Structures are given as structure tokens and as C-alpha cells.
């Protein structure tokens, strides 16, 4: 059998099988069967490579290629279950299989000694299975199922240390918050199904482009599209549903790296990219909403990131920041920029998380106020973190620079100078807080000698993935150049590989490129100025604008607003519903019908004499009456 795109179903099958095996027999295996999980990860990556080579041989017009089976088939409802591969899928697959494998490997070091070691890998396998299914699904229903699958895995893994109350709370928060978006997604899917009678993505896109049936109605289409986006926003932590992601850092760091940086949170980006033709066909307001929410998210997260002191949380806010950027790109119809950022972000953000995980693993401390000067103790971790942070900040020629550049160019194409300026400013802030966190954690004087003495370099199984990801962070941005792409076997640069409507040949825009580079360097330069020494200049700024500092420090009071909303609105409404349920549905409806049944039984029980002859007589009488009736009818 030629291993190629038609065998894409193998990917979830491998990990799914491993999951089932680990679930059933994991506890009988040595080391909880982690070697199986690593093997499955590597196997998926190998299969991915085959699929990639196959894809390169196929002309773009014949994509996507896949395979489907009948899932549900009866009169009026035919659902096909299928997997298919196209360019966007390939980018996602690259991130999921490659970063996934590395993180599974990294976890064998990070999670060592945990009492639920084997269970961790079991759920990890389930997650990768769901994620691969999500990415490969050719219809919205399967996608939705996988979407919920990654959601439940996220819940399980955030709450992995559920003995800790905060972890359990965070898991619940993540699950419920994303569910709010998911409900929107489900309604959106149902709306599309109602309009087209199919769940198939390509058919829906075609119907939307040609305005067939109900989709010809602009309002209907826009509403459905926005509901889809609600799901994407929930999963990808866009304002106002971003509140769960920082709390999700309660999970083990590999989980944060895999799920809450590289893969699951970009599912929203993937979904919007996938459905881009639909967004384009809908009212422009849909894209405007995407852009606007992207900007709000970027600024809120950047501002909060400036004042956070937990190393993982800062990285988490930077993730929200990056996701906002991707949605800004999508709002400008630039799938290329979004997917390029997604790819490079997958590498450097996983790198950042794993590096901070390495720090936490070594020091058992997350607060930067107790860290500092770690670079001498943990050189590999330190340098890889530095490169990741610089890539995140967007320093040329690291991968983040090129990706961010693509987004800015896309905004420029939109001819929106204000947005361009805002985006450039966000680049500046990003550079500041990324620089700050690296500066506070790794440079300067150790603040807590106790922690400092404990610090040591992590084992090779953890640093090796860091080095690999660092290398990719350094070079992966270059695939925007046509030459690099062709050297790798692609038709050209990234823009000629993944695009919406028209292939984009990369050309460097000097004004934007130099401008953003200046913003980055300025931001980085500001870091030692404000936080050098004991950081008194930063304090001074904070005291100068106390209200602003308080607002940012408290994350714009989002959680509190939600709490008030819950208390004042949701609980009151549910109280009313509960009263209705208890008194009307239960007491009258359920208990009432039971009462009627009981009364009827009480009255009817006298028929039961317990006398066998009576029962026999009833049977015989009935049968003979039937015989008599049949006889009478016959003659």
C-alpha cells in the first residue's frame, strides 16, 4: 500500500489505538507505557512526512484528497465520515505531529515520578487523536466531535493535579468558558446544515460562495459565520472568552506547551482559515468583528503581560497576544500570514513553555520575583528561552519576525493605517514584556538564593526537544522566501503554498520591515532601563498611573465582571428555572404521573388473585375467544 494522503486516517488511528491500549493495559506496562506513547508520536510524524511528500506530487487543483465512509445513512439524513488533506491541514499536521512528538518525549522527563504518570500519557494520546481528527475532518460534524474531544482532554489535563483546588477550578473554568463558544459553534453548524443539508465542508463553502438557498440570505450567512467564529474565539481564547487560558497554566507545563500554545488553542484559527471562503462571502462585518476582537485581545493581553510576575502566565498572555495577531491576519483575509504565524508560533511558543517548564522543574518556582540570574545555572534552558522570547518579540531574522511581518503587510494591503499603527505599537509592547520576563528570570542578580541554589540544568530528554525547537525557531521563518521553499521541494515560498484566492509571492516591504524592527529593538532596549537593578523605574511608572496599574494588574476585572454577571443574571435565572423544574416539572409532572400510576395499580391489584387457575382461565378464555372470532370471521 502506498502511504499517502488517502491513508491520512492512519494518523488518528495510530494514536487512538495507542490510547485504547494504554487505557486498558497501561497499568500493566513498565513505566506506564510511556514508550508506546512516544512511539505513537514518532509514528504519526513519519506518516505525516509520507503524506507531505505525497501532497507535493499532487497539483493543487485536485486538492483536497481524502477518504470517506458512510457514517449515518437513512432517509433524509446522510452523513459521511471522512478525512482529507490540503495545505492548511498539512501546516496543522506539521505542528501537531512534530511538536506533539517532542512534547510527549519531553513529558517523559518532566512528569517523572508523578503518581498518575501513565494516565498522563493516556490522555495525551487521546488529545493527539482528537486533534488529528479535528484537523483532518472533512465535515463539520466530525470536526465538532473532535473539537469537543480536545476540549475534554484539555479539561482532564488542566485538572491533572485535581487535588489542588486551583487546578480543579481552572479546569472547570476552561471547560465552561470554551463551552460558551462551543454552543455558538454547534448552532452555527446546525444553521449551515439547515441551509445546505450537508455537513461537508467543501460543499458548504461552495454553497456559501454561490449563495445557494438560505445561504443567499446575507444576514443568515453572517449570523451563521459569526456563530462559527464564537466557537473559534472560545477555543482560541479571544476577548471576551480569553479568561480561561491564563488559569489553564495550572496544568502540567507540557500540557500548556502542547494544548494551550501549539495546538488546541490554534484550532480556532484553523477553523476560521478553513471556513475563510465563507467569511469572505458573508457580510464584511463578520471579518470586521474578527479583526476588532483580535485587536482588543492583543492589547488587553499585552497590557496584562506587562505586569504579571508568574513566568508561565506571562507566556500564556503572550499566547493570547499571538492568537489575537492571527485573528487580525484572518480579519484581513490573509490565511497565509495566519498560518505562517501559526506554524512558527507553534515552534517558539512550545519552546517558551518548555523552557519555562524546565525552569519550574529545576527550581519548583514560577514567580519571577524569586528567580533571576538563572542563565549561569541553566545555560541551555536560558539561551533557548532567550531565542524563543526574541522570536516572540519579533526580532529579525528569527521566525517570529517574518510571520509578524506578513501580518503587518496584510494590514497594509487593507489600506488601514490606524490598524497598522496599532499593530506596530502592539509589537513594541510585546517586545517589552517578553524582554522583561527573560530579563527578570535569567539575568541580573539572584533574588532568592534558596531557589537559586536548587536550580540545575534539566535532563537531556527535556533539553533535547528545546534544542530542536530552538533550531526550528531560528530557521523556520525563512520558508517565506521562494528559494527556500523550492529547495525544500515546495512550489515556492510559504505564500505560494498556503493562500486564500491568490498565491502571494513574498517581497520584503522595507518600510514596514525596518519599522517593526525598530519597534522591537526599542522595546527590548526599554527593558533594562525600566527593570534594571531593583526595578525602581518600573515602580515609578506604576505609581504615576495608579488607576491604570490597578486595572491592568487585575486583568481589567474580567473575572470579577463575569462573577457579577453570574451572580446577578445567571443564578437568578437558574433559580427561576430550578423553581419551575422542582414545582411544575417534578412535583406536578413526574410525581403526579407516578401518583396516577400508583393509584391505578392500587385499584387494579385486586385483579391479581395469585391463584394459578384464575390466570390459566384468563389465558384460555382469551385464546378461545380469539378462536371463536376467527371462526366467525371465516364463516
Amino acid at each position, binding site marked *: 500500500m502506498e502511504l499517502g494522503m488517502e491513508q491520512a486516517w492512519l494518523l488518528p488511528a495510530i494514536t487512538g489505538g495507542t490510547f485504547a491500549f494504554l487505557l486498558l493495559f497501561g497499568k500493566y506496562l513498565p513505566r506506564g507505557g510511556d514508550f508506546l506513547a512516544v512511539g505513537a508520536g514518532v509514528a504519526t510524524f513519519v506518516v505525516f512526512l509520507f503524506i507531505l511528500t505525497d501532497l507535493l506530487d499532487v497539483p493543487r487543483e485536485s486538492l483536497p484528497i481524502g477518504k470517506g465512509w458512510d457514517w449515518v445513512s437513512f432517509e433524509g439524513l446522510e452523513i459521511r465520515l471522512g478525512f482529507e488533506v490540503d495545505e492548511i491541514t498539512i501546516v496543522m499536521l506539521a505542528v501537531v505531529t512534530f511538536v506533539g512528538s517532542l512534547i510527549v518525549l519531553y513529558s517523559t522527563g518532566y512528569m517523572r515520578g508523578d503518581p498518575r504518570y501513565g494516565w498522563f500519557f493516556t490522555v495525551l494520546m487521546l488529545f493527539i487523536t482528537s486533534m488529528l481528527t479535528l484537523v483532518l475532518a472533512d465535515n463539520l460534524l466530525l470536526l465538532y466531535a473532535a473539537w469537543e474531544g480536545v476540549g475534554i482532554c484539555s479539561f482532564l489535563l488542566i485538572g491533572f493535579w485535581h487535588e489542588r483546588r486551583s487546578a480543579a477550578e481552572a479546569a472547570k473554568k476552561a471547560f465552561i468558558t470554551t463551552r460558551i463558544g462551543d454552543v455558538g459553534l454547534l448552532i452555527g453548524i446546525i444553521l449551515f446544515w439547515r441551509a445546505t443539508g450537508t455537513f461537508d465542508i467543501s460543499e458548504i463553502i461552495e454553497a456559501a460562495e454561490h449563495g445557494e438557498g438560505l445561504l443567499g440570505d446575507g444576514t443568515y450567512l453572517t449570523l451563521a459565520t459569526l456563530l462559527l467564529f464564537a466557537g473559534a474565539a472560545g477555543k482560541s481564547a479571544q476577548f471576551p472568552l480569553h479568561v480561561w487560558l491564563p488559569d489553564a497554566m495550572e496544568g502540567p507545563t507540557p500540557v500548556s506547551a502542547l494544548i494551550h500554545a501549539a495546538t488546541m488553542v490554534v484550532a480556532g484559527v484553523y477553523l476560521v482559515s478553513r471556513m475563510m471562503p465563507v467569511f469572505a462571502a458573508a457580510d464584511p462585518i463578520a471579518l470586521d468583528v474578527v479583526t476588532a476582537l483580535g485587536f482588543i485581545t492583543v492589547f488587553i493581553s499585552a497590557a496584562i503581560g506587562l505586569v504579571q510576575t508568574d513566568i508561565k502566565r506571562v507566556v500564556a498572555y503572550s499566547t493570547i497576544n499571538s492568537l489575537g495577531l492571527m485573528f487580525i491576519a484572518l480579519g484581513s483575509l490573509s490565511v497565509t500570514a495566519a498560518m505562517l504565524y501559526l506554524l512558527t508560533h507553534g515552534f517558539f511558543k512550545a519552546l517558551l513553555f518548555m523552557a519555562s517548564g524546565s525552569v519550574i522543574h529545576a527550581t519548583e518556582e514560577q514567580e519571577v520575583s524569586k528567580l533571576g540570574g538563572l542563565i549561569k545555572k541553566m545555560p541551555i534552558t536560558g539561551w533557548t528561552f532567550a531565542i524563543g522570547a526574541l522570536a516572540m518579540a519579533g526580532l529579525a531574522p528569527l521566525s517570529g519576525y517574518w510571520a509578524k511581518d506578513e501580518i503587518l503587510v496584510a494590514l497594509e494591503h487593507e489600506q488601514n493605517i490606524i490598524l497598522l499603527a496599532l499593530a506596530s505599537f502592539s509589537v513594541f509592547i510585546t517586545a517589552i514584556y517578553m524582554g522583561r520576563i527573560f530579563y527578570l528570570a535569567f539575568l541580573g542578580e539572584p533574588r532568592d538564593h534558596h531557589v537559586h541554589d536548587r536550580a540545575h540544568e534539566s535532563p537531556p530528554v527535556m533539553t533535547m526537544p528545546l534544542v530542536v525547537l530552538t533550531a526550528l525557531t531560528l530557521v523556520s521563518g525563512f520558508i517565506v522566501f521562494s528559494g527556500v521553499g523550492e529547495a525544500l521541494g515546495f512550489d515556492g515560498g510559504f505564500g505560494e503554498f498556503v493562500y486564500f484566492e491568490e498565491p502571494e509571492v513574498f517581497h520584503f516591504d522595507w518600510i514596514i520591515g525596518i519599522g517593526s524592527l525598530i519597534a522591537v529593538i526599542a522595546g527590548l532596549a526599554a527593558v533594562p532601563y525600566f527593570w534594571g537593578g531593583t526595578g525602581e523605574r518600573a515602580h515609578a511608572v506604576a505609581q504615576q498611573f495608579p488607576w491604570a496599574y490597578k486595572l491592568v494588574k487585575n486583568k481589567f476585572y474580567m473575572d470579577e465582571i463575569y462573577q457579577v454577571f453570574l451572580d446577578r443574571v445567571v443564578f437568578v435565572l437558574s433559580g427561576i428555572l430550578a423553581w419551575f423544574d422542582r414545582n411544575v416539572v417534578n412535583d406536578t409532572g413526574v410525581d403526579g404521573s407516578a401518583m396516577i400510576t400508583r393509584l391505578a395499580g392500587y385499584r387494579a391489584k385486586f385483579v391479581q388473585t395469585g391463584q394459578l387457575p384464575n390466570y390459566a*382461565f384468563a389465558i384460555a378464555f382469551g385464546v*378461545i375467544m380469539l378462536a371463536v372470532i376467527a371462526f366467525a370471521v371465516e364463516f
Partner: protein
Amino acid sequence: MTIEEVIFYVLATGAGLGGVGVVLSRNVVYSALALILSLMSVAGIFILLSAEFLALVQILVYGGAVTIIILFAMMLTRVRDMPRAMNGPQWPLAAAVASVFMAVSTIAAVSSQWPGDTENPTVIPLRTLGDSLFRQWSVPFEVASLVLVVALIGAIVLAGREEGE
């Protein structure tokens, strides 16, 4: 009246009288003996229907085994000591129902238009019957044997004495 008809009427009388004895006799053991009479007469009826094999099975199973077990059960349940009232209070109803059924079935049997020759039965050779039983009906046959085994084990478990009895 042919010789077969004479034999039929004799056997039918035996079967009928036996049946009447089973249901009307005031002595339980007479009932059982009447049952044997009826069963043996029915075996004769089977022979008239040229089903000799079934007739012999009937004699072997019922004459040799079933009725003996019934007699056994009577002796073990001390049938002689039981109250004289053999019939329950609903016997008039039972009689009515039985008569209605008898009338219906008789009228139906006599007045129906049967879809074939009702005068001449075909003799089915024993070898054909055996072939059919062990080829075409082999699975039901095995199932029946399984049922028999399970029923007998169940009977042993039920009737066997428990500890302390």
C-alpha cells in the same frame, strides 16, 4: 366400515375415555392410569397415521418414563392424604370454556375446505425421516438435546435435598 376404521374407533375411544378419566377421576392414581391408557391409544393412532417411529417413541418416553415419574411425584407428594376436593371452584367455567373449544374445533375440522387430499395419507419412510432429522433439522435437534440436559440438571438441582433438609 373398514378394519382400519374399526381400529381407529377403538383407539379413539381409548384415548377419549383415558382423557375423560384424567380430568374427571376422583382418584389421582386412576387419573394417572387413565393417562397411560390415553397415551398408549394415541400411540396406536400414530401407527394408524403410519408414523410407527413416533408411536414407539411415544411408548418409550411416555409409557416407560413420563408416567412413571408422574406416579413417583404423586407418591412423594402424598397424594392420598390430600383433601377430597379434586376440582377448584372454577370448574363450571372451565367446563364451559372446554365445551366451547370442543364445539369450535369440531365444527372447524368438519366444515373446513382442506387444501389437499383428506382421504389418503402418505407413508413417510423411516430413512427419509431420519435423514431429514439429522441433516435439515440437525441444529434444532441439538438444541433440543441441550434443552433436555439443562432441564434435567435443573430438575436435579430443584428436587435434590439441600443441606439440613
